[in-house]
Structures are given as structure tokens and as C-alpha cells.
């Protein structure tokens, strides 16, 4: 199904274009403006050229050191949570009940953390992890672990990562579940007739079908963890010391805390550029995957099993719970 060329479609897109341009382009222009200047308050600005950018990318200066350190921490954080959430999300999606009221119940509980305001997520874990009044901290300390996320770097990191896993694994799981649901029953029946093992079914049927949604999941999770602010800020405040200060926390500190407009603006631009590049890579991969799938579907339509034809003659296969 080819799209028709129609330039009038721009009229339909215009409202979106205006709204987003108003919220994105206009403020960004201010940022570019600030990033080239220095200020000593009183709305007096001085031209500083690329000075802030030079400082930002030089680890020996204060600004550069802080930025690169927080960037490193943030990348480590993003990779760590992806490494946990993606496999865990797949496992949870595969563990979803098949039918009945339990499906709805599981879906609602899974989605619950996603709808809690981010600072309340922080508050929940702040309370839950405290050694004096929180269940987790209390139990861990009673078991002999010296757990305290306020004073110990490692404990703070573990708390922040576990909190993110708690908060967002459901997103990965729900996306994978949607992918799994779209697999026609006939695929499984064919696999069963072929005597495929559980692992083979996962590798040959379920994983390829989840490809696309997994890509969306990784994209969303990477981006959102890369700009995480509220949750770790509420729990650890970026500390102990600077050990859980991520890029957004550093940026807000500089921009709204110290009101260092030039530095903050330069940091914003570099930060945005990194995000833009990563986003572009994902987008390219995603559109290419879409094209590939279309080509594949067009070249081998005969291989696609016809669910209606395959389903009818094999009612005897229905009770396959024991095999799985």
C-alpha cells in the first residue's frame, strides 16, 4: 500500500508543527543564545564565544570534570538497568497467564508503577529503604547487612537501580506481552508437530515476533534513563557526595541552583546533541527493520500459515498445557 504524494497534508500537520515549534524551537534558541555568553547578574551579558563548550569538554576544569563524570555515571546506569530490565521483562511477559480474570489483574498491577508520579516513586523507595522505618532497610539490617543508602555509595547505587527496575520493568514486560499476543496460534501448533523444544520455540517464533517492540522498549528505556532526574533526586539527592549525580541532576544544579546560565546552556546543548544522535541511530534501525519485514512478507507470502485453515482439523491438540 503506497502512500500518495499530497503536499496539502502539511495543513493537517501544521497544528502539531506550531505547538511543538513553540515549545521546542523557541526555548532552544534562548539556550543557544545563553551558551555563547557570560553574565554577572543584573541581566548584563558578555560575549563568550565557544568558551563554555571548551571548558565543558575539558576534564581538567571544574565544569568539564563534573559533566564528564556525571555522563559516565549516567551511561553506566542506563546500561545497567537495560541489562536487568530487558531480560526480566521478557521473562515476565512469558510468565503472563493465558486467559481468565488473572490476565486483567496482572496487567493492572504491572501498569501500576508506571502511573505513580516520579517523585512519589522516589518517596516510596526513600521510605521503603530507610533502616529505621522502611521494611527493606530494616530487614536487610536485621539480616546482618550494613545497608544504608544515605551514607554508602554502593547501597545508594543498588537502591537507585532496584528502584528503576521496580518502576520500569513493567513497560518492557507489557511491550513484550503485546508482541507475544500477536503470534497466531498456528505457529505454536506447527512447532509442536515438528517437536520443537521450548528454547527453539522461543528463539525461532517468540523472539523474532518481539523484535520490533523490544526495539521500542530499549529506545524508550535508554532515553528515559538517560534523562532521569526526579526519582534519584528524591531518594539520594545525588549523593552520597556526587556518587549518584546524573547528567540531569548536574544540569539542574547548575541552571536553577547556581543560575549559571552560560554553563548550563552549553551543557544543555551537548546533552541534547547526544540524545539526538542516539535517537537517530535507533530511528534508522527501526525504519530499516520495518522495511526489511515488509520486503520479507512480500517475497514469501506462501510460507505464512493460514490460521483458519490450520486450526480447524486439530481440536485434539487443545490441551497442551502439560507439554509446555
Amino acid at each position, binding site marked *: 500500500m503506497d502512500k500518495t504524494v499530497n503536499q496539502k497534508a502539511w495543513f493537517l500537520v501544521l497544528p502539531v508543527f506550531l505547538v*511543538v515549534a513553540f515549545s521546542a524551537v523557541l526555548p532552544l534558541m534562548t*539556550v543557544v543564545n545563553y551558551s555563547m555568553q557570560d553574565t554577572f547578574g543584573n541581566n548584563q551579558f558578555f560575549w563568550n564565544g565557544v568558551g563554555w563548550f571548551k571548558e565543558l569538554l575539558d576534564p581538567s576544569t571544574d565544569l568539564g570534570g563534573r559533566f564528564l563524570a556525571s555522563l559516565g555515571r549516567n551511561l553506566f546506569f542506563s546500561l545497567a538497568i537495560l541489562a536487568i530490565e530487558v531480560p526480566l521483562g521478557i521473562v515476565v511477559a512469558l*510468565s503472563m497467564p*493465558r486467559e481468565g480474570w488473572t490476565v486483567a489483574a496482572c*496487567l493492572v498491577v504491572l501498569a501500576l508503577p508506571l502511573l*505513580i*508520579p516520579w517523585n512519589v516513586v522516589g*518517596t516510596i523507595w526513600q521510605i521503603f529503604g530507610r533502616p529505621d522505618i522502611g521494611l527493606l532497610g530494616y530487614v536487610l539490617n536485621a539480616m546482618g547487612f550494613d545497608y544504608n543508602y544515605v551514607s554508602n555509595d554502593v547501597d545508594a547505587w543498588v537502591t537507585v537501580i532496584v528502584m528503576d527496575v521496580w518502576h520500569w520493568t513493567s513497560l518492557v514486560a507489557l511491550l513484550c506481552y503485546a508482541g507475544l499476543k500477536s503470534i497466531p496460534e498456528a505457529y505454536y501448533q506447527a512447532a509442536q508437530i515438528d517437536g520443537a523444544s521450548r528454547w527453539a520455540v522461543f528463539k525461532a517464533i517468540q523472539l523474532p515476533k518481539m523484535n520490533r517492540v523490544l526495539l521500542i522498549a530499549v529506545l524508550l528505556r535508554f532515553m528515559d534513563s538517560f534523562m532521569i532526574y526526579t526519582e534519584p533526586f528524591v531518594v539520594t539527592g545525588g549523593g552520597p557526595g556526587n556518587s549518584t549525580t546524573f547528567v540531569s541532576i548536574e544540569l*539542574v544544579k547548575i541552571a536553577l541552583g547556581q543560575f549559571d546560565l552560560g554553563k548550563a546552556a552549553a551543557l544543555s546543548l551537548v*546533552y541534547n546533541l547526544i540524545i539526538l544522535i542516539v535517537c537517530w541511530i535507533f530511528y534508522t534501525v527501526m525504519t530499516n527493520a520495518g522495511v526489511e519485514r515488509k520486503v520479507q512478507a512480500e517475497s514469501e507470502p506462501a510460507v505464512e500459515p493460514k490460521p483458519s485453515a490450520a486450526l480447524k482439523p486439530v481440536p485434539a491438540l487443545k490441551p497442551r498445557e502439560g507439554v509446555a
Partner: protein
Amino acid sequence: MHSIPGRRLIMGLFLIFLLLPIYWLVNMSFKTNSEIVSTMTLWPHTPTLQHYKRIFTDESWYSGYINSLEYVVLNTIISIAVALPAAYAFSRYRFLGDKHLFFWLLSNRMAPAAVYALPFFNLYSAIGLFDTPWAVALAHCIFNVPLAVWILEGFVSGVPREIDETAFLDGYSFPRFFIKILVPLIASGIGVAAFFCFMFSWVELLLARTLTSVQAKPIAAIMTRTVSAAGMDWGLLAAAGVLTIIPGALVIWFVRNYIARGFALGRV
């Protein structure tokens, strides 16, 4: 064949992991402050409603909920209204710069709120919208409009093109076709998109806090302020937290049948 061995156990453990911290918050909201601080109890031994009572009677508390709901609803309406025609255009037509535009929109969904906090503050102060629900509603458009376009595009693409053509042959004008035929066909998609706009606007704090000071302060910001000022009123904090979870839980219940497909952004 579909699922894995021990799936009930895995699911059970995961659900407990999800619910336990929430239970602890609910548990604490019904305790008195002296019980919270002095003893470790798994359920409230002297249950009390004092924290909830305080929130529902003190205007500086409950107005926060009203403010939050106000900008969330405004934002959802704006986002869906502008995203619908755009989603149709992206789904049906090819036009100059369409792919670049789509990517540009998407990249705004990913832009960090921290980058925009300060410029938004200047922008909305300059046009006199600072400290109104409109400021926050418009600011949240930056990530919700692209998301709504993205989701709705998936759903519009699921409607066969023949339906458009038949409608136009039958003499429907474009606006009439849009409202009478297309919108009912993708009603579930609109529901899902609205759900997501609601969700992301409801959970966001950084922009909402930066763009308001007194009149339109969201509940999330009121909570953080109280923590630092009143010191350790844990029970009140927990009660306020529980109340922020409730609207989300209600919304989930209404869209539970579309949740899975919605999270795949209409693309499965």
C-alpha cells in the same frame, strides 16, 4: 508451549516485588507518626485517618490535586486535538519533509526536561502564563504531542484505505469523514493515546514545579516542599503519596483491555 516452566511462581514473585513497596506506603499512611518512628509494625496497630483528614480539609493540600488534574486534562485535550489530523497525514500521505518532520517530533519526545526547565521558565514568564495551568499544559505538549502522533499513526494505519475512498466517493467532505467515520473507527486508539498523555503529564514533576509557584502548584511539588519544611511528617507524606496513585489506578482499570496494545504504540 506459550509460556515458560514455573511461570506462576515467577509472576507471583514479581507481583509481590511490585506491590510490597506500595503496600508499605499505604500501611504507613494509616499509622500515627509515633507508631511509624517508634516501632516496626507490618500493619497499623492503631489505625488512624488523621493524615487523610488533614489533606482533605486543608486547602493548601487538596488544591494541589485540583491543580494537577487541571493541567493534565488540558494537556490531554490539546495533545489529542492537534495530533489526530497529523497522525492521519503521516499515515496516508507522503509530503515534503515528512520523514524529517516525524523524526524531529520523535526527538522531542526524548528531549530531557532538565534542558527545557530554564528556557520554559523565561518563555512563560515573558508571555504572562507563568503559574497557570496553561503553562504546564503547554510545556508538557513537548513530549505528549509527539507521543500522541506516534500512537495514533499506528492506529490510523490499521484502518483500511478503502474506507476513506468509499467515504469520499459517497460525497463525504473531509471534516465530516474525519469526525463521522475515522474517529469512531479509531476510538480505542484515541483512548490509548489519551491514557498515555494523561500518564506522562501526571507523573512529570520537574517542569510542573518549575513553571508554577503558588496558584497552580501541583500536588507533587507540595509534597516535596512539606518534606523539607515540616521535617519528618512521614504519615502525611505517605497519605499524600497514596492519593496520587489513585487517579492512575482508576485510569488503568478503564483501559486495561487496550493496555498491552497501547504500550506497543498501536504497532503490533
